[in-house]
């Protein structure tokens, strides 16, 4: 990081003296070059992280990141900011744990405070079936060397005193697990922090540049057609959650993906009242409180395909009924803002990271509801895959071929929210 760009309490104080008029732009707005060593399509967290790790881990700095709008405004800026790595299958645990570990050092690495708040993530069980599934997951996670515990009802009550633990509720809470390293991070900061750090290493971030097609010769990608002209590159990585099928269609193949709305909402700001992240599969809700004081909530996906970034109100009614059932004191709290993202959903609720039928074209998609928590790990292994033209070992199970062989990594239900 160049010296005059570095962030710290001291640079903040120094700049306060001249009314903050000397801060540099966090990233440049360069004109596109005719060709690059690699192009990343998609300026969300995954694309930005990939560009950063290409430059940092693999020394590939002649990179263009192409984004059709401003960066970070798709799912990266629309999620509920939950971070965790408590996944059932070894393959999933590996990639999400890599991600969580990278998150743990990311503020310092990027010199940008991502406000990682590891306040613990609690999953509730409401039936013997839930309890068995949670127990299975916790055991698997622990043997993978990742932190996870069961909570006694007394511990749960102490941790979340406002939770309705009445045995008379419709689906009484009968047990819970916790990943203490789970929590939240500031979503915008992830995009901006990676963008600033990637730019600093030479990556050209080209905003307002839309890809309109791929130039493919003899099964090899040669570059991308964009609204700002053709840009050549021997390697193109695509990370455009929500629009993966659209880009795949441009490259001439189909994906096992459907695009669905995923809705979220925040309440008006409240003084601190809830200090963990909570999820309940049975009553379909996850909830945390942001540093601004808003209760942040999300639910399951809307069932129909959509590219509209909006869903149907019954989902909201369900989340809020579930929330009031779990937290009766929130009945008079108000929903302030509600929105939707477009998530790629794979049949096994696991991502696709790897090579495609087109040589030199790489794909990163299908994260479903797990996109935000996987950003650093995904970018890390995707950068490796692009640089080496060979999947990173953690990415290897997430190939497109698994749909032919049948080696699916079925995380249905493993996200804790029914799909």
């Amino acid at each position, binding site marked *: 990081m160049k010296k005059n760009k570095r962030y710290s309490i001291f640079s903040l104080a120094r700049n306060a003296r001249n009314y903050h008029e000397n801060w540099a732009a966090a990233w440049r707005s360069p004109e596109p070059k005719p060709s690059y060593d690699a192009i990343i399509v998609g300026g969300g967290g995954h694309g930005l992280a990939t560009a950063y790790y290409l430059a940092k881990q693999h020394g590939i700095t002649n990179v263009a990141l192409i984004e059709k709008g401003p960066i970070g405004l798709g799912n990266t800026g629309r999620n509920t900011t939950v971070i965790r790595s408590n996944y059932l299958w070894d393959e999933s645990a590996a990639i999400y744990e890599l991600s969580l570990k990278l998150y743990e050092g990311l503020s310092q690495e990027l010199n940008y405070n991502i406000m990682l708040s590891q306040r613990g993530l609690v999953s509730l069980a409401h039936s013997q079936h839930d309890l068995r599934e949670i127990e299975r997951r916790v055991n698997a996670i622990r043997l993978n060397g990742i932190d996870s515990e069961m909570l006694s009802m007394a511990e749960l009550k102490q941790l979340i005193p406002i939770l309705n633990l009445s045995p008379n509720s419709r689906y009484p809470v009968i047990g819970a697990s916790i990943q203490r390293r789970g929590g939240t991070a500031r979503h915008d900061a992830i995009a901006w922090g990676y963008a600033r750090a990637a730019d600093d290493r030479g990556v050209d971030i080209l905003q307002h540049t839309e890809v309109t097609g791929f130039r493919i010769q003899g099964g090899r990608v040669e570059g991308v057609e964009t609204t700002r002209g053709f840009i050549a590159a021997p390697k193109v990585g695509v990370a455009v959650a929500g629009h993966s099928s659209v880009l795949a269609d441009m490259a001439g193949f189909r994906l096992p993906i459907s695009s669905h709305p995923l809705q979220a909402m925040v309440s008006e700001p409240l003084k601190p009242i809830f200090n963990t992240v909570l999820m309940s599969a049975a009553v379909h809700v996850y909830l945390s409180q942001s540093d601004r004081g808003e209760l942040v909530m999300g639910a399951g996906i809307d069932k129909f*395909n*959509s590219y509209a970034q909006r869903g149907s109100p019954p989902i909201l009614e369900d989340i809020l009924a579930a929330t009031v059932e779990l937290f009766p004191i929130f009945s008079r709290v108000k929903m302030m803002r509600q929105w939707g993202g477009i998530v790629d959903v794979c049949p096994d609720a696991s991502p696709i990271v790897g090579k495609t039928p087109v040589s030199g074209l790489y794909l990163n998609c299908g994260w479903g509801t797990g996109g935000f928590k996987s950003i650093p790990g995904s970018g890390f292994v995707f950068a490796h895959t692009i640089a080496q033209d060979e999947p990173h070992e953690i990415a290897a199970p997430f190939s497109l071929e698994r749909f032919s062989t049948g080696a699916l990594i079925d995380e249905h239900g493993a996200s804790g929210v029914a799909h």
Partner: protein
Amino acid sequence: MLRIECPHCGARDEAEFSCGGEAHIARPKEPDKLSDAEWADYLYMRTNPKGILAERWCHTFGCRRWFNIERDTVSHEILRVYAMGEPRRESGT
């Protein structure tokens, strides 16, 4: 909340229906003759268009009949409702 015209019951709220995803995915007649990749194409690969999508819906909390619709996945406008087994329009994707 979509308002869907059930061909048998009339217009009803989306909440009464279940969405069955992309329509016109016929089950291969002779699965054994397909390669793994061809079978995967039937089983998993989807067009997932941004624009007009032909999809299946079932009036689950009504007549329980399945039918097809053409819907714009950006505006959510429903352009056509038609019977199961009826072909999609030429112009449809």
